């Protein structure tokens, strides 16, 4: 669909797709799903959703039920979509912590399970090396990093999604990167004082 980027042809392409989706065109809603669902799914999965696939569908159902009242360009749409995803995620995490339920791991129900060996290998690699990379971060730092890397949001957009000030998001991002750098065993960068104590 090529609606990413937010300017020029991409922006006009997004505008026409959005208008068609708001009118209910099947091709347009499908295009939005195809374009944005991997990022939403990746965000929910990386942030610890128990059922990220179902939750992604719920996010898009909510999106389509409110899309007619949406106005704005692609950046605003992206912020709006991830705001919906973040709210759904918080609801799920809160529900789970209230219930205190710990589901037993069953491989056949693992949503990360895939049919093809290539995808399976890819998923294993993701689990071991990359998705686990952010697990050691505190929740607020992990939110910022995941929204920055997977959702491709700017500092201002993340501030809007999380309801914080942009300055606070910048500080969280900096602390998260420093922490990851330490975790990977890299030497401290000499030209910057440490922010770890903040």
């Amino acid at each position, binding site marked *: 669909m090529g609606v990413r980027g937010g300017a020029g042809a991409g922006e006009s392409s997004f505008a026409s797709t959005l208008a068609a989706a708001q009118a209910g065109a099947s091709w347009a809603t499908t295009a939005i799903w195809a374009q944005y669902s991997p990022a939403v799914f990746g965000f929910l999965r990386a942030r610890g959703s128990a059922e990220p696939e179902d939750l992604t569908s719920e996010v898009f159902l909510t999106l389509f039920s409110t899309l*007619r009242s949406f106005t704005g360009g692609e950046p605003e749409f992206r912020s709006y979509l991830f705001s919906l995803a973040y709210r759904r995620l918080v609801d799920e995490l809160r529900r789970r912590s209230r219930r205190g339920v710990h589901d037993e791991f069953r491989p056949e129900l693992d949503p990360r399970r895939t049919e093809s060996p290539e995808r399976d290998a890819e998923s294993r690699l993701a689990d071991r090396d990359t998705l686990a990379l952010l697990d050691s971060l505190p929740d607020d730092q992990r939110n910022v990093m995941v929204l920055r890397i997977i959702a491709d949001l700017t500092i201002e957009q993340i501030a809007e999604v999380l309801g914080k000030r942009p300055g606070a998001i910048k500080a969280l991002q900096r602390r998260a990167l420093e922490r990851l750098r330490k975790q990977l065993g890299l030497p401290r960068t000499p030209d910057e004082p440490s922010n770890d104590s903040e």
Partner: protein
Amino acid sequence: MSADDEAMLLRGQTPDSRPELQMLGQSLAEFRGAALGLAPRASAALADRLASNEPLPDSKALAIAAPARRRVIVGRVAAASIAAAMIVSALGSANVLPPAAQVVFDQVVPTAVPTDHNSPAVPAVPLQPTSDSNIKNTPGDDAPTDPQAPAPSSSPDSTAPGNSGDNRGKGNNNGGGNNGNHGHSGGPDNGNGNKGKNNN
């Protein structure tokens, strides 16, 4: 780490001047690729929505429905208020409100609802002997006096004959022509149950 370094790392690149950050940039690039590599399956409900060409729900319709709901609520509140006012009015007329509320009620509705003698707002008026010449009788009180008639009771709700309240239209025959009005002749209740109808 500068802001530019951070931006490059988050894009999965390594700043040229910072080769020591290569591993971090590479890890973040892998993280990004792995997280975005899998496409989710749509649920049944979402698959139906994606296959449908029906217009999306119109949130403006919901916005139009809201005033209608507000009108219903306002109507119910108004009906409840009217019912409450009627109940208070009925209780006030029957003099069964709490004393303080009854006082307020009597002040607010002085003429519409006759006050009772037992109301604390209306002090009991002691009846005087018939020799009180300063008291001017009402036109209805000029009936011939009966010296044999029993003395009027000091109690406004006396059950003595002639004061029992059933003497409407019969003229007042309570002795001395004084029915205890004491200047209240124009009031709605003259103190002996005549209710202002003590005509001859």
